[in-house]
């Protein structure tokens, strides 16, 4: 069963076509990869799937429910979390405060309660420990290194218990030793039932991690399949090396 379905989606910026009749399915319980040369439309596809950009045409559905052009918070509330290529954390909040921002969806009385004594606090600490930055919990997030910010963004998405997570270059800027640990964490979460869609330029990371890989070129998928199949696909080699 497909948990995310993108059907014939188009998106242009002025005269530049970012997505051109793009269709993509992500099966439930999968770690799916999305690769392609720079400017192939991967991040734009992420943006339209999570409500940060409106589509010009086509549809997006999540678990059978239409989410085309829905607001980002609505989509997030339904269970689709995402990280950004350039991390978007809250730099002047501490690491632990960042973790609590993503659990704001509650009534007014809940909002007036103290965040540090909430039930989510313990879980926030556990998740920081899970990604390995719990010791930095009291530091302003802006003081973290780029890789640490990536991990923080990943952790604060997890606290909202998403069903699907879209990771935009999760390994970018993360030190090589940590990349393997990060892949292990993604696999562990996947075993717990979370579906992943990963955009990444680090081919080794994608090929080792993903069950299924889709290759984008000029705003549309040109190949899809198991990593080993995609790697051999002449159209993929052409897209990466041809122009």
């Amino acid at each position, binding site marked *: 069963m497909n948990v995310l379905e993108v059907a014939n989606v188009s998106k242009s910026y002025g005269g530049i076509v970012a997505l051109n009749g793009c269709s993509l399915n992500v099966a439930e319980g999968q770690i799916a990869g999305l690769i392609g040369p720079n400017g192939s439309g991967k991040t734009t596809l992420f943006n339209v799937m999570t409500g940060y950009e409106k589509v010009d045409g086509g549809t997006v559905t999540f678990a059978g429910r239409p989410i085309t052009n829905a607001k*980002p918070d609505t989509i997030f509330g339904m269970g689709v979390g995402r990280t950004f290529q350039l991390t978007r954390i809250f730099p002047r909040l501490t690491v632990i405060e960042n973790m609590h921002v*993503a659990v*704001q969806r509650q009534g007014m009385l809940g909002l007036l309660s103290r965040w540090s004594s909430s039930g989510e606090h313990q879980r926030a600490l556990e998740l920081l420990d899970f990604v390995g930055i719990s010791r930095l919990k009291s530091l302003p997030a802006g003081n973290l290194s780029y890789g640490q910010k990536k*991990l923080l963004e990943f952790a604060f998405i997890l606290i909202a218990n998403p069903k699907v997570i879209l990771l935009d270059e999760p390994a970018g800027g993360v030190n090589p030793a940590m990349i393997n*640990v990060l892949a292990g964490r993604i696999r562990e979460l996947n075993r717990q039932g979370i579906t992943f869609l990963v955009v990444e330029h680090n081919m080794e990371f994608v090929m080792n991690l993903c069950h299924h890989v889709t290759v984008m070129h000029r705003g549309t998928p040109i190949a899809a399949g198991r990593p080993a199949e995609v790697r051999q696909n002449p159209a993929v080699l052409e897209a990466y090396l041809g122009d």
Partner: protein
Amino acid sequence: MTDSMAKLLKVGSLLLLLVLALLFPFIAGNSTYVTIAIFAFGFAAAATGWNVFSGYTGYIALGHAAYYGIGGYTLAILCQHWHIAGGWIPFLLVPLAGLVAAVFSVPLGAIALRTRRHTFVVVTIATFFILQLMSYNLRGLTNGSSGIDFPLITDWGINIPGISFADFYVLPFYYVALALTLVALAVSWFVRNSKFGLGLLAIRDDEDRALGLGVRTGPSKLFAFVISAFFAGAAGALLSYYIGGVQPTFTFDALFDVAIALMVFFGGIGTLAGPILGALVLESVQKYSATVFTQGGGGVYLIIYGALFLVVVLLLPQGVIPSLSILWNKYVLRRIEPTDAAEDTSAGTPGAGPVGDRLPRVNEGASA
């Protein structure tokens, strides 16, 4: 120093400051200084309220003089229409005046908050001028440019042996101003530590991202705006009552906005104590210099203001409280750094320490 000792020291210092504030009129021994303190605490309450909105969300509002004016006029109109005599009763109506200002702020804030950044600043300034014009022109209600006088206070109903009426006169105003500041501080603390406050701080850093994570940005900003208008209105009511009347020129005073913004920036925007420190220093300097330097049209305080700001901008650019906080953290970090460096060899193992390629930098920009 252990955490519990640090906490004890903090609570002890705050209690000492509170006792000093309570005893100040008797320590000062001069009603002129108490008058200065009344204005300083009145502005401290307004600045603390302003900080709940502008400091926490990053939206700089420069139209809160409108709510200060609404508060002042509300109390004056209520006293006039309900024939309230001078004395204690108007103090009880100060929260009501703040509430009326808060009610006004709902539609005005809702309109202004449809915009962001510079446009928001301009819209808030515009709302101020609209309300000032209304105070000139709604003569049946506001008495136009003549304004409205508050009822004279001829007797507080309390006689303390050894204290004259003139000396006692300022005391109720002082304690109400102090109470208003403490309430504003408590609200600011409560907001800062609540999930609602966390949402406001997230808006300050990246509003669209906060919205994407489910923070109700619109209602949160409006609620904070209304809180800040309440304290501006309450401060306007109290200080107008002390002055003895309201007039469009000085009750709707554009300089009020500049003053509270400067106070908050001086002390440290987005901090708890910064607005109070800024108000106590700057308002005291202004009122004191106006008292001492009677020549030159009372503008000497501007020179002192300028000098103070030069010092703060050059030496403490983020405001007094955050800058001192950074210096303190640097000092602490220097002391613990050798230990941390040794521990950091475990970096990169989840659950066993920081994942990083270097030591974290000092705690810059943390709220005090």
